[in-house]
């Protein structure tokens, strides 16, 4: 079983990493006209840039880990019991993996032009 200190170190690292990357992500939108930045063709162009796709993938992974671990912490503090805690721990892990998979599918398929 992974120690709680290791989980929380990952929690802090993912927080710092996602802050840095989200800033780039937001600035990317602001470099274009805000209202034009979401136009279909502009979004497709952005996805076709490999570094930008990698950036989105990293943000997806980092925030998913950070967010679902945060949720796990809140839910573990809300209620206790072996069965409940096991469900919460694995439930959050499964949700995190599901969200990363779902988001990665979008990033991968769009960046490869599979739409």
């Amino acid at each position, binding site marked *: 079983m992974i*120690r*709680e*200190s290791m*989980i*929380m*170190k990952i929690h*802090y690292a993912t927080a710092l990493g996602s802050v840095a990357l989200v800033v780039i992500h937001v600035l990317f939108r602001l470099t274009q006209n805000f209202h034009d930045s979401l136009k279909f063709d502009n979004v497709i162009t952005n996805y076709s840039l490999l570094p930008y796709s990698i950036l989105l993938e990293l943000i997806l992974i980092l925030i998913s880990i950070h967010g679902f671990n945060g949720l796990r*912490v809140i839910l*573990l*503090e*809300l*209620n*206790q019991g072996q069965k409940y*805690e096991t469900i919460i721990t694995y439930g959050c892990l499964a949700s995190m993996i599901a969200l990363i998979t779902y988001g990665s599918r979008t990033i991968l398929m769009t960046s490869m032009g599979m739409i």
Partner: protein
Amino acid sequence: MAAIKIHEENDQNVKSIAADIKPKNKILFKITKFNPHVDTHMKYVDYDVEYEHWNTVLDALLMIKHKVDPSLALRYSCRQASCGSCGMMINDKPSLACFTKINELGSDVVKIEPMSNFPILRDLAVDFTQMFNTHKKLKPYIIRSDSEISQSNEIKEFSQDPDSVEKYIQFANCIKCGLCNSACPTMATDSSFMGPQALTQAYRYVSDDRDKGKNTRLKIIDERHGIWRCHFAGSCSKVCPKGVDPAMGIQFLRSYLLGFRD
């Protein structure tokens, strides 16, 4: 304390107890009464209390107990914030009854409830078993292999310079009153959390340079309901009556686990 009056629930017949000294102030005490073996719900009983400006909440409670309601259950001992027995919720804030003057509350009503986050034994007396067990679990004593008590009857002294004492003396002030655990938001929902009292005492010994049990204690606190469930809300430090500042001790303790300290 001069005189006291009681009216319970809707009882209009207010009983007055003779006063020897001319009363200075009047205040209403709303006190929780609850016997878990009999009652299903807590109830508040109102007592009109006349007090002098030097009276503490404990003075008033003892006056009520002695002259009006002997069944009122509360725990107290030293009356000088040294024993940590008389912790309770006073106007929704965990406080020591002996360390809280009535006139400093700035209120016409004093609401007295048992300390939250502790099981109720009766009325204002709460059960400290879990807190003391957690405290013991974190080994609140000097750990080292060359014990001062040896087989050869040789008395050993572990000397320490005054600067080293300053590093932990603040945390050694803890009187185990439980107010910090009562104010802690995690303790409010997490029945397995170690709590600020025990975690701070773990740091008290870790920061003592005579102690060699740091790694043992760090291993104990590094678990699911250990130190990581503290979110530095600082409420523990706000209510500590002895200036222990548990939030500071806990963050220092955690900094070992994060690699900020050796």
